[in-house]
């Protein structure tokens, strides 16, 4: 079965399940899928039933995030005029992609699902549907950026696609996200509120508040905990007595799943189940995705232009570095490779088509960076705007 034939099949509406029966005959269906993909026996394998364009769209999203990351790293390492900074998401792309693929990302604001992000937002933003050019201009502090240059990386927000914003603080976002879920339930909407958070969020007092109130009020709320093993420079065992943080959520009576965060389809399956539950009034869900980031906590120390990942020395870590072998071991189970190989296995595309998609994505990213770099800088006085909905505050720095 070649990719062209398959493409046609999809357009004709052959379901994924139908396709899989054919693929299974060829004996390759599950061959290259990730080790843990079927680990959790109770979970439905919903991804199987998705239309081809949706499945290919997931790979494309992963690639878009990945190449945005890599281009940004290269810019930071080679272009001294480039001013943006970043908390890199590379390595975790499958989590944002799988979760957002299960959400309603367009339509009127009072009907779409909302997602709250963290200090590491670019992957979540792109997966939720934020425009890459506008986002990149914002990261580069431009007046025409997504948020007019007020936000930069740590506060980018685009409510029009339900991307409620990055947040530089660890903890509050989770409680705030339950507030949106509370509003949905109060106004009888079937919208769902999702929050992304790291393993570092477990220790915050807000963890308890978010889960307890979500459970008590049966809120349409999904807590996606991306356990990338480290909060800043400390392993999560410094702050959490659980091996699976999901166990902490189960204690509240909240259904929880641990998934392979490197496999976008496994993430999607768990998210789909959670979204279905939330929409139908079944209350909150907790998803712990085991994953890993390829770069250091912040910026590009230890990285090399043109190469993926960062190893060893990070001046901010001071005394504690992640073992290089650990980073390399995780890079063996790369979310790009896993998604790509699975789709090739499933016959949705062949290597050539996958390569072509990647080239398209690279071109798009290059263009976004170029566009952003041409955008105008901010006007100093505009800093006095947007404090309140109307008017400006007084420039008190001036005598």
């Amino acid at each position, binding site marked *: 079965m070649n990719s062209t034939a398959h493409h046609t099949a999809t357009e004709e509406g052959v379901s994924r399940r139908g396709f899989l029966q054919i693929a299974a005959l060829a004996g390759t269906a599950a061959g290259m899928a990730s080790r843990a993909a079927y680990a959790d026996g109770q979970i439905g394998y919903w991804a199987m039933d998705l239309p081809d364009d949706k499945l290919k769209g997931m790979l494309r999203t992963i690639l878009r995030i990945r190449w945005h990351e890599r281009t940004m790293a290269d810019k930071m390492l080679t272009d001294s005029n480039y001013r943006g900074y970043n908390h890199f998401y590379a390595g975790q792309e499958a989590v944002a992609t799988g979760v957002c693929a299960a959400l309603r990302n367009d339509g009127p*604001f*009072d009907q779409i699902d*909302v997602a709250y992000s963290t200090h590491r937002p670019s992957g979540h933003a792109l997966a939720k549907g934020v425009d890459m050019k506008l986002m990149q201009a914002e990261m580069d502090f431009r007046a025409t*950026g*997504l*948020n*007019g*240059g*007020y*936000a930069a990386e740590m*506060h*980018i*927000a*685009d*409510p029009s696609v339900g991307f*409620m*914003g990055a*947040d530089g*603080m660890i903890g*509050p976002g989770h*409680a*705030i*996200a*339950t*507030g*949106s*879920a*509370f*509003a*949905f*339930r*109060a*106004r*009888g909407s079937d*919208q769902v*509120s999702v929050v992304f958070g790291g393993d570092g969020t477990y220790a915050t*007092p*807000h963890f308890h*508040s*978010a889960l*307890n*109130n979500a459970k*008590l*009020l049966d809120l349409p709320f999904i807590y996606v905990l991306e356990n990338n093993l480290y909060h800043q420079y400390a392993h999560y065992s410094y702050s959490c007595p659980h091996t699976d943080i999901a166990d902490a959520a189960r204690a509240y009576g909240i259904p929880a799943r641990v998934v392979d965060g490197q496999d976008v389809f496994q993430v999607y399956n768990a998210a789909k189940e959670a979204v279905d539950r939330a929409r139908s009034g079944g209350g909150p869900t907790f998803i712990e995705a085991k994953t890993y980031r390829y770069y250091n906590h912040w910026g590009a120390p230890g990285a090399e232009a043109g190469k993926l990942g960062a190893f060893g020395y990070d001046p901010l870590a001071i005394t504690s570095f992640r073992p290089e072998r650990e980073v390399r071991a995780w890079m063996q189970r790369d979310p790009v490779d896993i998604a790509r190989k699975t789709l090739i296995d499933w016959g949705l595309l062949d290597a050539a088509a996958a390569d072509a998609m990647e080239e398209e994505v690279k071109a798009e990213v290059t263009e976004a960076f170029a566009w952003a770099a041409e955008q105008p800088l901010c006007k100093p006085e505009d800093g006095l*705007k*947007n*404090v*309140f*909905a109307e008017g400006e*505050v007084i420039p008190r720095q001036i005598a």
Partner: protein
Amino acid sequence: MTEKSWMYAVLEAVAAEMRADPAMTWIFELTPPVASNPGMPVINLETEFGRKRVVNTGIDENWMVQAVIGAGLAGSRAATYIPYQGACMPFQAIQNHAGKLRHMTGGKASLPVVFVMEMTGQTPGFAGQHSDYEIDSYYMHIPGVRTVIPSTPYDAKGMMVSALRSPDPVVFLYPAGLRMLSEEVPDDQYEVPLDKAAVRQEGSDLTIVGSGGGMPDVLKAAKRLTDEGMSVEVIDLRVLKQMDTETLVASVAKTKRLLAVDQSYYTLGPAAEVVARCAENVEGARFKRIAFPDAPPPASPEMFNWMRPDAERVYAAAKAMV
């Protein structure tokens, strides 16, 4: 038009807004949104609007405020009533989130929400954590929230209507010491602006500025001074952020004497800002503050009452200036 208590007037405003907007919510903890007033129907938000919109939570004021922020971001008007014991628990959420989100997102986030923050009744005997009157200062330095402190039932209702209709987050301070005040309050909705001080009495010898729970004492002292022939101008701040400099400066430019009164601790109470703004803008005037000393409120009524800048203290301070 009926004589109404502070709380009845406020809940009347809230109930009318909730009737008009089926998405609006209210979160409370130990203070049920219930009020009664002679000759008027009992207001009970929980029974009127149901438990999906009006929620009684556990003791987690930080969650209450954050839930309201999340509801606002999702496009629902929302309000919460924080009891005074918990008034600083959600401080960070208001300081680092509510007050900054609009600006940080370049105007993309909007927060049509109200945080009703109860302030203690300054009841003698309750001591350190239950008689203090300090949160006006903390919530006044934060940019991006409108911090208001109405001191009469009329203002309280009108400012609550304005606050609920405002796209900006409002910290609505409720000095519980005023709970027994009542006055004529219209039955219909009306707005009182969120950026204007009120001149309660005009005069030319001395300007006295007070706010919130301190106003009854200020007015009492002003009456005595007026009766004795002093021409006293009394200003009720009403709004702490953004403070109405114009009204203050115009008054002090006229009287050339400013007495600023805080129930909050002296250091960096609202009166510091009042004096500083006037001192920057009016030359040759005299300035004086009285306030609660920089000490927690002690339990013993003997100690506590002596430390309050009450009508007697205001009177004495004014006499010393004119």
